[in-house]
């Protein structure tokens, strides 16, 4: 028997810094990682399969539970895909409200990322600070949808309810407060020599590799590829907004940190524009038989009541066909592919989750590096296991 030179360490599924139930099989030579193999499936929920047996509108809550840190983005992706399938045009106000809320979601998701990433590196105060700020955004979810995390606020053809009365005031408060607080984060991390040592030149991926691994989101832009679906393939009225695509240069964990901070600022900028330009109007499209009529009409008009009853009980029939709609979720390209066979339930829903595709690059990021860098690499990818396993 040849002498064993390496030690295999099983990192996870219960491990404090694998962000859930990821398991990484690490082959170590001393402190150096020879081989790293991510093992997934511990949080498999069968969401894609479940959605096949649901009416279209009942499938929306499933999407929240994939990337539970960015519920609104998931809602948006699915809702846009169904709207594309049904050829529904939503009112302007809905578009603007959706943009505003998904950008806040991006901020919330990045804040959680920042907190957990810093915690992995050992700076534990960051977690508490970022969660404090995220709470403001969660409050907005609560005001809109009544739910703090699994909001399910977007509906096919509109929103579940009108925006709350103090929405404008609350969001403006966030836009004011978060940049102030971000100065603290930067003071703690950006120029901290230990943080720089831990992240600069760690978990590097070149632009070419990033494209070949089909990475998306900050993982791709961190390597200097200026690709953002909000610009490249605008949806939900993003062409009306003025913002910049932040990019990094070296493709290391430090660049991705700076990039996500820039993205938070840009997102707040978009949210500001969305608030300033928010048009008046209905919060649902008028598509009888597909989109629920206003509650007032349901109580007073015969036709509306019938439509309401029919939509709730048997949903709506979709035309035969296949659609793919991708959005720029906080973690990258989130795509929904829906294949319809003409019934009131999707024949097949396939999700293109950014976390899953980005996680595939983990071995490339940490092989040949030190064991401590695995943690930085996992943190820097920004995964949510609910989305990886679906």
């Amino acid at each position, binding site marked *: 028997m040849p002498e064993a030179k390496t030690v295999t360490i099983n990192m996870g599924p219960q491990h*404090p810094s694998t962000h859930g139930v990821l398991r990484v099989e690490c082959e170590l030579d001393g*402190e150096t990682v020879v081989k790293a193999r991510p093992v997934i499936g511990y949080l498999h929920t069968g969401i894609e399969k479940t959605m096949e047996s649901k009416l279209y509108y009942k499938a929306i809550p499933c999407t929240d539970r994939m990337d539970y840190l960015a519920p609104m983005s998931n809602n948006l992706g699915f809702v846009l895909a169904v709207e594309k399938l049904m050829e529904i045009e939503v009112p302007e106000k809905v578009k603007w409200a959706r943009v505003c809320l998904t950008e806040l979601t991006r901020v919330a998701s990045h804040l959680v990322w920042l907190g957990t990433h810093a915690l992995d590196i*050992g*700076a534990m105060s960051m977690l*508490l600070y970022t969660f*404090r700020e995220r709470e403001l955004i969660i409050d907005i979810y609560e005001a809109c949808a009544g739910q703090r995390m699994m909001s399910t606020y977007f509906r096919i053809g509109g929103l579940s309810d009108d925006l709350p009365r103090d929405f404008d005031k609350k969001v403006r408060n966030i836009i004011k407060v978060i940049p102030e607080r971000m100065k603290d984060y930067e003071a*703690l991390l950006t120029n901290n020599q*230990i943080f720089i040592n831990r992240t600069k030149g760690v978990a590097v991926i070149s632009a070419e590799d990033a494209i070949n691994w089909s990475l998306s989101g900050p993982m791709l832009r961190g390597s200097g590829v200026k690709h953002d679906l909000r610009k490249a393939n605008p949806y939900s009225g993003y062409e009306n907004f003025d913002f910049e695509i932040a990019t990094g240069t070296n493709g290391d964990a430090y660049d991705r940190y700076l990039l996500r901070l820039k993205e938070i600022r840009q997102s707040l900028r978009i949210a500001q524009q969305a608030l300033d330009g928010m048009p008046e109007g209905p919060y649902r499209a008028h598509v009888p038989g597909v989109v629920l009529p206003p509650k007032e009409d349901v109580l007073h008009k015969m036709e509306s009541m019938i439509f309401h009853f029919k939509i709730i009980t048997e949903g709506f029939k979709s035309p035969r066909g296949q659609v793919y709609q991708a959005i720029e979720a906080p973690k990258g390209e989130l795509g929904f592919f829906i294949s319809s066979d003409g019934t009131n339930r999707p024949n097949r829903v396939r999700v293109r989750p950014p976390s899953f595709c980005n996680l595939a690059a983990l071995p490339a990021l940490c092989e040949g590096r030190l064991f401590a860098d695995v943690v930085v690499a996992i943190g820097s990818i920004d995964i949510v296991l609910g989305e990886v396993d679906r």
Partner: protein
Amino acid sequence: MLEMIVASSIKVIIVMLAVLTGCAYATYMERKVVAFMQHRIGPSYAGPYGLLQPIADAIKMAFKEDVVPDKVERITYALAPIASFVPSLLVFAVVPFSADFTLVGRQVTGVISDLNIGILFVFAITSLGVYGIVLAGWSSGSKYSLMGGIRSSAQMISYEISYGLSIVGVILIANTLSLRQLVEQQDTILHWYIWKQPLGFLLYLTCAIAETNRLPFDLPEAESELVGGYHTEYSSFRFAMFFIGEYANMIAVSCVGTTLFFGGWQGPFLPAGLSVIWFVIKVFCFMFFYIWLRATFPRFRYDQLMNFGWKVLFPLAVVNLLVTGLIVLW
């Protein structure tokens, strides 16, 4: 003779009680201070302001089931917590806590044992602490513990050298190894050795953090990589011994730092019998600084830590020693 034994025994008991209570309340202080820095409340349920929390924790620890995994080396596994716990308490034998004072007509010295090589004793004993950690990592039969143990031994041995060298400057200037005489020389704030040895103090501070395995040098127990490090497989009172040992170490290096650089119990206003209060205040500031660091800094990576120790701290310590030596010579 008998009188001396009785007096010493009483002092030992008082110091032991004080240190162990200090350890318990150091955890409380740490949790409260960190909570304050992180916009939290911290322990608040057990007693007023959560003041009984350390006692609740101690009771919980003592009554937990002692889980011993199958693959451990039983004897070493059982000895390791003791090997880590005992040295951390031994240090207090030579630390001068207060000035000499008269109590009911008897002269009382403010130190358990005024060893004339006190400072050597301190450094010899603190170095022993690493054995407990190495043995714990080795005997646990777990890869995570083993890695924690190896990291720890490498780290503590590397920092031991700079740690030792950092205080030689003070010894050269003071021309004594007795901690009590060191304190007596620093009779006013201007005579504190921190002014004569600023670099030595910074080196001492840094190395002391590494010696006590605190953030940003807490690699042996880097929870984000190694879960619990060397004490992953320990539970119940064995774990508590590591835990108390760690805090006792923190208090010990704070005490030694206070004695060497901040004039120990020396301070204005208070009579000799109460001079221990100055000592406690100074130690408290040290502890606060440690906790503050923990709430602020990320953790070093293993190789960076070693580089820092050997390529930055060690040369600085040598330079400091050489310069001090030359100044003392002329």
